[in-house]
């Protein structure tokens, strides 16, 4: 059993890979179109929370830990090590943030979170790189160990502390947040006026300049740093070559073991940092079960982002946004999203019918779109239990529509032994 998985269904891209045309202009255009769509949707449905700065601030809060976990996944998978243990490393990070944050202050908590995540990464690295164990097996084991270790250690270290107990830490000191004073209030005024498109844009910009946690900024800096290190330095080229073809890297004198080991350590500390964000910024407390599967979602965000930093930010943002609007607006807001979904589905169906002549797939897409649209018009809201599913359904839908264009590192998940490439 190897973790590379089956290739069936996935389109194998051979030959020259089409260069993605992601010039800054294009990105800006996509962003403007997206804001425009949301503005239209808000106007049509009256669900004002779709673009409020509050919802977007919540979205950022939900996206950052997922993005950090995804970034961790990116480092390790780019070096060829599948890391499903992100969840466990993240859990270790929450405890690290709680313990070090309580005893030595929030900045130490952040470092402690990264350190504890790195311990998880070290276990994964020893198992997969040194012993060549199946990556998924090791990841599953780390998830179990992380889950148990955090609970065990929490009971050991937080019992009897003031305000803490066996399942939670005392409340932790907050990390600073930043605002740009004048701009923030000006945008706030603009947002209140409910002008089509302009207010929506103001809401989005306002959420980016008001009470932004310093950890959010660190996370964004880490994304940029990751891109620069992995794609613009010799070190990064070598690291990625270990994920694409370790044997070729070996013949060029790269110490593949060392690069893989380092990548997995970085991966663990980033996932731990994601856990640290949950404890220190999102909740100001360590609590058992705080991660709630966000490590897995981070992995999904990274795959969705085609193993690229920019893409994974997009994936994390999508998840954070859908989660935020369902948490804040509940049924009404999710109900509004249904209209968008119906339009998108019908659009895709028409595209497939007219341009690619896939009658069955196009027909199914249009039919489902029509059902969703019909449901939108006959119903007032969506049941609470369903709104909770929104981010998962959104991720699944987006993956179903885009998965065939994805390409993972060629040697991702494959075992590598030095000197065995013949």
């Amino acid at each position: 059993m190897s973790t590379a998985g089956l290739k069936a269904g996935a389109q194998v891209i051979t030959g020259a890979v089409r260069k993605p045309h992601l010039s800054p202009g294009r990105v800006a255009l996509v962003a403007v179109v997206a804001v425009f769509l949301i503005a239209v949707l808000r106007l049509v449905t009256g669900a004002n929370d779709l673009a409020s700065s509050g919802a977007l601030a919540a979205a950022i809060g939900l996206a950052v830990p997922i993005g950090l976990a995804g970034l961790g996944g990116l480092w390790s998978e780019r070096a060829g090590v599948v890391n499903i243990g992100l969840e466990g490393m993240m859990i270790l990070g929450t405890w690290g943030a709680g313990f070090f944050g309580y005893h030595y202050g929030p900045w130490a908590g952040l470092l402690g979170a990264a350190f504890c995540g790195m311990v998880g990464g070290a276990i994964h690295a020893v198992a997969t790189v040194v012993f060549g164990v199946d990556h998924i097996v090791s990841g599953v084991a780390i998830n179990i160990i992380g889950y148990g270790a955090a609970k065990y250690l929490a009971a050991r270290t937080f019992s009897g502390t003031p305000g803490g107990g066996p399942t939670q830490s005392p409340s932790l000191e907050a990390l600073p947040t930043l605002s740009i004073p004048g701009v923030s209030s000006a945008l706030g005024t603009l947002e209140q006026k409910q002008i089509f498109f302009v207010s929506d844009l103001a809401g989005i910009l306002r959420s980016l300049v008001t009470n932004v946690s310093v950890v959010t900024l660190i996370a964004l800096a880490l994304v940029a740093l990751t891109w620069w290190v992995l794609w613009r330095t010799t070190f990064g080229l070598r690291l990625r070559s270990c994920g694409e073809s370790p044997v070729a890297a070996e013949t060029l004198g790269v110490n593949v073991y060392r690069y893989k080991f380092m990548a997995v350590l970085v991966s663990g500390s980033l996932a731990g940092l994601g856990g640290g964000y949950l404890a220190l910024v999102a909740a100001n407390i360590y609590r058992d079960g705080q991660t709630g599967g966000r490590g897995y979602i981070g992995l999904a965000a990274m795959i969705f982002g085609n193993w690229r930093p920019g893409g994974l930010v997009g994936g994390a943002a999508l998840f954070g946004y859908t989660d935020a609007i369902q948490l804040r607006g509940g049924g009404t807001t999710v109900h509004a999203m249904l209209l968008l979904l119906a339009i998108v589905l019908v659009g895709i169906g028409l595209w497939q019918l007219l341009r690619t002549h896939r009658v069955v797939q196009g027909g199914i897409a249009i039919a489902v779109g029509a059902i969703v649209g019909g449901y939108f018009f006959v119903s007032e809201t969506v049941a609470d239990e369903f709104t909770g599913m929104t981010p998962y359904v959104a991720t699944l839908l987006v993956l179903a529509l885009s998965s065939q264009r994805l390409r993972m590192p060629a040697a991702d998940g494959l075992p590598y032994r030095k000197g065995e490439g013949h």
Partner: protein
Amino acid sequence: MNATNLRKLGLALAAPALAILVAFMVTSVVLLLAGDPVVEVWTQLLTVPRPRLVVAIINGATVYYLSAIAVAIGFRMNLFNIGVDGQYRVAAFAAAVFAGQGWLPGPLNIFVSLLIAVVVGGLWAGLAGWLKVSRGVSEVISTIMLNAIATGLVSYLLFKVADSTVGSNVTNTKTIPVSSQVPGFSLIPGTPNKVYGFILLSMLIGVGYWVVLNKTRFGFDLRATGRSETAAVASGVNVKRMVMTAMLLSGAVAGLVGMPLLFGQDFSYGTTFQPGLGFAGIAIALLGRNHPAGIALGALLWSYLEQQSNGLQINVGVSSELVFIIQGVIVLAVVIAYEVVRRAGLRMEQRNVARQLSDQPGSPAPEGALV
């Protein structure tokens, strides 16, 4: 020749022994570092369990076994069905709703309910299979998402159909009629508690798993696909259809996971139905190396540790979550030990071949024999 076989057997037994030793040492170190009483913890975990606990251990293993077999079906062909957790909950809910109505008499009701569980579990897994073969979505991701969706769906439907007796605020499906409840066996003397009657179902599934995988063409194709997809394609296997079939089968068995609990203990599906069985199944399948007998041992060990650790908090004052550390370390140690032993065996074989070849006069030293 005989000596080699003996050595091979020794190596095969060395791995699990090594793993348990490692798990023992690592856990002890953790306990020492945390300042917990090492000796007392091990005394608690290693005492002979009382009859009541033995029954609980067997019952727990019965359920884990089904879950691990469901996972193992996917593993054998390199499919990672992480969604057993969602599949068994959706299936158990559907079966509980039907069985609770009591439309059919006694055993027939059980039979049809099992059928419903199998179909619903299979279809839920089939969604992930379909997404994989037609849209190329990694089953790891889709099943994780489907787990979360299952949680929402079941809790929504549960409140719709919940047994709304006036004055009660329980959220359970209707209780299964007594005639359709599966009686237990009094296997263990010294306790009134009974072993689930559905232990037979687990055994049946275990035997079925072994026969289908090892004695049928389908099983051969499945294993071949798992070993090498390209080789399987070359020999005429339709990999997409195999993915779909394996996913449906895995989900069908996953659908049965909740049945011993439903018909032997809870008699209805509610918010307190045991969660997390799917994830334990993954670890146990790995522990048992996807072999039906190995999985049985793994399930028993898992259940044993779980039941024995329940007393840790009361008797020793140590958090019972310690058991997860032990379980995780065992999984990791087992696979590492197997890998180490495999390499040792390989080296031994290579040395043997080299010796035999160099014994023949005039032959050159074989290339690459000494790695």
